[in-house]
């Protein structure tokens, strides 16, 4: 785990102090709302439908038990006893008062946490594979690089007022669990002649113009990483459009100017930025890397308890089948704790649940917790012998749902229930789909199926990369839901295609049920996933399942 240095501490305390001063100046009138807005956004403070919202950074999704407990404390003390984990590995509180936020930031600063650069037109909190440092398929742990990028981008004087927000994701595995090509910059670790470097993609993004990132450089050695990123940002700050906020992201510049033009520009800027770095960043990186050393795992401890529980308890076996992933060490497993109990709000955790997760991570899991972009909580280093005990504790707290990667493991944005930009609700749709398929008891038979729901075109719910995507719109004052098919958020990323006309909020659940039943009827065998079947057969049979009446008419 990264040890927050006195430097980091001084920095976050300083920022909290500055924000307190900014709030005071806003209240005194020295800052207008227009001026205050970007300043509060730089500190994670939004104004939503019912209240302010505070988005707290969990850099690359890594959080310690003490930090998790502090989030629980904040939920109880200043909010309504719960928090919401987001698709960018952050956490949001929905009910803070502006005048309390400086105190909340002070409290966070005590455990090295902050809300810096979780909003606004700046480089956002860098995200990474939530299995980093544990996954069996990994080239190297990407988090030291993510932490280096966090430090570089934090308070970068040149890049606080970019044309638009800017997202960077890092993956250390050939299997992309960080959706890197949907980011402004996607970094995919590659090895070339025993040297580690990154394949750099630019111009990915979802939102109203979903685009898959394009490779701007096939291999940037790690020693050049920061100057190269700085060159991309420098170029973007110059050529990114400022005349239309919907065309201001890097992806539009890449689309309009072409990847070759962008590559030339970046190369020219790289010649400027490379000499600006004197190499100290590599010493810092080496120091960071030491702190992400592999935890000391127990050797030789029997996993018989795990095997026995699997044999004896079908509930445990079902959970183990869906919620565990391979660890580098076969005696260990990566546990994903679902925040998506059927009928619950996806991504929400109560303060008691947060404390339980902290306790379990401390007792069994090397004190390591992760937040996934799929809004679940990951414990990356769990000995298999401990799994039955952990599962029992999780179940008792409503955290034992066996649905990772299944139809009820839905990503949903806050939608019209909370968000000032939303055009329709997302949460109730997710709740109803999960409840319905739980009733049908079909979930495990269906197998891997990613449903992602956004409450507006900005696509915070990643609907474009859902195998089934649902986009909530406002049609003449009535919520309406469009379905997209065939999206994929992995290394084979693709953007889903719109299936046809939208559905009302009463029609959408039966429509999804028809769609899934239709898939079950046409799949080759139970190993063929929804996405594989879609890619094999194309959209026609799926559309037929969605719109049966039309087919009859035709």
């Amino acid at each position, binding site marked *: 785990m990264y040890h927050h240095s006195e430097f980091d501490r001084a920095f976050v305390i300083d920022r909290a102090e500055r924000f307190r001063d900014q709030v005071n100046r*806003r*209240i005194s*009138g020295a800052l207008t*709302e227009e001026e205050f807005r970007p300043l509060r956004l730089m500190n994670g403070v939004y*104004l*939503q*439908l*019912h*209240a*302010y919202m505070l988005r707290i950074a969990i850099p690359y999704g890594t959080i310690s038990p003490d930090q998790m407990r502090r989030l629980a404390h904040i939920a109880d003390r200043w909010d*309504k006893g719960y928090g919401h984990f987001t698709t960018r590995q952050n956490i949001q509180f*929905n*009910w*803070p*008062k*502006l*005048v309390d936020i400086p105190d909340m930031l002070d409290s966070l600063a005590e455990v090295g946490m902050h809300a810096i650069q979780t909003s606004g037109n700046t480089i956002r909190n860098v995200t990474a594979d939530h299995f980093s440092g544990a996954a069996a398929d990994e080239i190297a742990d990407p988090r030291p690089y993510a932490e280096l990028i966090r430090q570089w981008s934090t308070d970068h004087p040149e890049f606080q007022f970019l044309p638009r927000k800017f997202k960077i994701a890092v993956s250390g595995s050939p299997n992309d669990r960080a959706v890197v090509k949907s980011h402004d910059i996607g970094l995919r670790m590659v090895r070339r002649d025993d040297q580690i470097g990154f394949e750099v993609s630019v111009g990915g993004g979802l939102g109203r113009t979903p685009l898959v990132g394009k490779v701007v450089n096939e291999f940037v050695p790690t020693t050049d990483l920061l100057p190269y990123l700085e060159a991309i940002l420098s170029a973007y700050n110059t050529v990114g459009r400022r005349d239309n906020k919907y065309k201001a992201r890097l992806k539009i510049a890449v689309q309009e100017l072409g990847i070759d033009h962008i590559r030339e520009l970046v190369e020219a800027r790289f010649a400027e930025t490379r000499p600006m770095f004197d190499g100290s960043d590599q010493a810092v990186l080496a120091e960071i890397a030491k702190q992400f050393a592999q935890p000391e795992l127990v050797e030789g401890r029997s996993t018989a308890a795990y095997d026995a529980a699997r044999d004896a308890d079908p509930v445990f076996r079902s959970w183990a089948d869906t919620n565990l992933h391979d660890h580098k060490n076969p005696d260990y497993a990566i546990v994903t704790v679902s925040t998506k109990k059927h009928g619950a*709000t996806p991504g929400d955790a109560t303060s008691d649940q947060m404390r339980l997760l902290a306790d379990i991570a401390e007792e069994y899991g090397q004190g390591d917790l992760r937040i996934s972009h799929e809004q679940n909580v990951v414990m990356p280093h769990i000995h298999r012998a401990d799994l039955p005990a952990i599962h029992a504790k999780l179940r008792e707290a409503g955290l034992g749902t066996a649905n990772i990667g299944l139809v009820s493991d839905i990503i949903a944005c806050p939608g*019209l*229930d*909370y968000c000032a930009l*939303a055009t329709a*609700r997302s*949460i*109730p749709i997710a*709740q109803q789909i999960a409840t319905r398929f739980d009733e049908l008891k079909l979930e495990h038979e269906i197998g891997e199926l990613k449903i992602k729901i956004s409450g507006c075109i900005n696509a915070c719910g990643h609907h474009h990369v859902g195998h089934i995507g649902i986009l909530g719109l*406002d049609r003449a*004052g*009535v*919520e309406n839901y469009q379905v997209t098919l065939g999206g994929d958020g992995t290394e084979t990323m693709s953007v889903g295609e719109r299936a046809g006309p939208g559905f009302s909020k009463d029609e959408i659940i039966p429509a999804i049920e028809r769609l899934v039943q239709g898939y079950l009827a046409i799949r080759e065998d139970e190993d063929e996933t929804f996405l594989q079947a879609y890619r094999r057969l194309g959209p026609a049979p799926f559309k037929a399942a969605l719109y049966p009446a039309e087919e009859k008419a035709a």
Partner: protein
Amino acid sequence: MARKFEPVVISANDLFDGRVIYLTGADEWVPHLNQAELITEEDHAKHRMAHALALSDRAVGVFLAPARPGPDGPVPGHPREAFRANGPSNYFHGKQAEA
């Protein structure tokens, strides 16, 4: 043909705690929609909006929110306004819990 003017109220969020507020005919910001001034004429809406912006020290994001007349004063004129007036649908939080 000019579009028919749909009735509105003046609404905003409170600077200090972010809660939804509405402007009454007596220039007070209040938390309940049914106490707001329902505006049915376009010219009056413009005039009241300019006035609201001038007195809006504690009001953030002042805008004209669709509303309709109801038995006890204005009611929401759009689903978004219904959520603003009551609170979210997944938890019993917000104004619905304060009533």
